[in-house]
């Protein structure tokens, strides 16, 4: 078990280094327009993701369950799901630069998780029996938060590009960012994805052997309601992409706050 703890710690440190290096390269790519930095950034993100996966494996072994029980662990899982979605969505939308904005965010989450004690030193007795619905409920819910995180990244990129276009400041950054149309589409799809996943997460809570408690359900539901309301308003009133981006930036405070509260409870 001590070996597992050491390995988990090493993998997590490695992941942090990868994401920090990807952040540094991303800054070079954005400010100097070095197109050669794009592939190494992608490789560093992929390596960081693999290392995070290995951490989750060993940490899960130590925990005897899916390692999403403490706030640091949740942060690591959140950054892992964000990178996972980035690879799925970023490639689908040809938004390779999404990684440039994602790298500092996941580096921050992973670093906070590592500093907060995401690696268990003493093994926890495994849950007996392990409730598969609990594992599914928790992991799907956190992956939905990953989608909201990535939506925030896309919203930030949209607002930056929109501002550059409106102010006619066609800088290096302007040429490196994707089109506002692609970003607006990616933003909407990510919010829909996050909302759908969170709906599944909340629904599975009612199938658990042990009910997680109304406080948790209410916290998750507040996020679900907020994003649901945003999608409803957009559908009924056709929000402009700028308003949708701004609203999703403000709304992201809610998953962050509830994450902190869920981690404590």
């Amino acid at each position: 078990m001590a070996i597992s703890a050491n390995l988990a710690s090493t993998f997590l440190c490695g992941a942090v280094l990868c994401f920090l290096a990807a952040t540094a390269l991303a800054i070079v790519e954005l400010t100097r327009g070095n197109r050669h930095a794009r592939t190494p950034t992608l490789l560093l993100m992929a390596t960081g993701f693999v290392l995070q996966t290995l951490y989750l494996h060993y940490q899960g072994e130590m925990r005897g369950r899916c390692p999403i029980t403490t706030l640091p662990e949740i942060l690591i899982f959140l950054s892992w799901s964000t990178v996972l979605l980035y690879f799925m969505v970023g490639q689908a939308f040809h938004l390779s630069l999404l990684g440039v904005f994602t790298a500092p965010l996941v580096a921050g989450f992973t670093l906070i998780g590592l500093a907060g004690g995401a690696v268990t030193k003493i093994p926890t007795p495994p849950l007996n029996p392990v409730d598969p619905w609990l594992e599914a409920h928790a992991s799907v819910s956190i992956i939905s938060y990953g989608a909201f995180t990535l939506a925030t990244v896309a919203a930030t990129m949209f607002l930056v590009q929109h501002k550059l276009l409106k102010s006619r400041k066609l800088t290096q950054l302007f040429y490196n960012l994707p089109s506002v149309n692609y970003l607006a589409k990616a933003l909407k799809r990510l919010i829909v994805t996050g909302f759908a996943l969170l709906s599944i997460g909340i629904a599975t809570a009612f199938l658990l052997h042990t009910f997680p408690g109304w406080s948790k359900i209410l916290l998750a539901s507040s996020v679900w309601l907020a994003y649901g309301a945003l999608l409803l308003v957009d559908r009924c009133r056709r929000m402009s992409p700028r308003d949708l981006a701004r609203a999703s930036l403000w709304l992201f405070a809610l998953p962050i706050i509830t994450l902190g509260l869920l981690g404590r409870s």
Partner: protein
Amino acid sequence: MSLVCVGINHQLAPVDLRERFAVPEHSVADVLERIRESSQLEECVVVSTCNRVEFYASADTTPTVGNCTEKIAGFVRENVSAQGSTHTEIPLYTHEGINAARHLFRVASGLDSMVLGETEIFGQLKRAYHLAQRQGATRGALNRLFQSAFRVGKRVRSETDIQRGATSVGSVAVDLAEKIFGNLDACRVLILGAGEISRTTTKSLASRGVQDITVANRSIEKALELASAMGGRALAFNDWSNCLNSIDIVLSSTSAAQYVVTPEAIRAAMARRKGNPLFLIDLAVPRDIDPAIETLDNVYLYDIDALQSTASRARKLRERQIAICEQVIEEEARDFFRRLS
């Protein structure tokens, strides 16, 4: 081994002289054969574009480089005279040895082009090289020289900002459209006014995939003419605002004294556009599009000044890159010549 370049370009000769030197693609084989025979050259490549005609050659048997250069220059002069040129002096330039390599590297990098950093020349060089290769007119030296030139051209373009930004009004408009819509294939363009500037800017948009073009002009004949040239359709001028909700890019260059496109018209169209952005390009002086439209959400408005200043900034940026490019070229030219000798 003698390596030489003899040529004429846009910097030294006007078009009426350059056109006499031009070697059409179907004559390349014949010219290569004659020049190699008359000048006793081992290898030769002819680069003939609208801005330059250059002969690159190498010879093992020619006693001196100067001799080789003189023979090519003589051949060129004779050919031009045979076409009845009235120019008494032909401003040919010659580069020998490392200078010939340096010159080709500059050409491949777009440093010798009329539009600094343009990429078209790269493809033209490749075509010229392949034509010569097909004729068996290239061997060791010129093969190595051209392969090196292609590598240097790529290196200069990827390591510097020499091709960064758009340097003409049309290409700035295209860049902006791509940063708003992404792929332009499905974009629908409305042209108000059928002037020359509309035509050239529309051509730029069409070159990047725009297919759906509608032309509205006060004179329907002119609208029909431009529409047919662009493969689009014409519209009566009074009807243009009716199709605004299905248009992505409006390009306006009428000679109207007042604003043609008003905030009210755009506001009404935006309400029906389902959140799709609208790009307005105002190429007219006095302006056609009310600048108050700029404040509308999801609408991007660029007038001629904004486009021209962007193009001018890009040109200046490219000019600042020249020194960096020259450094790369110098390093590569020395390296190439060291390996060659």
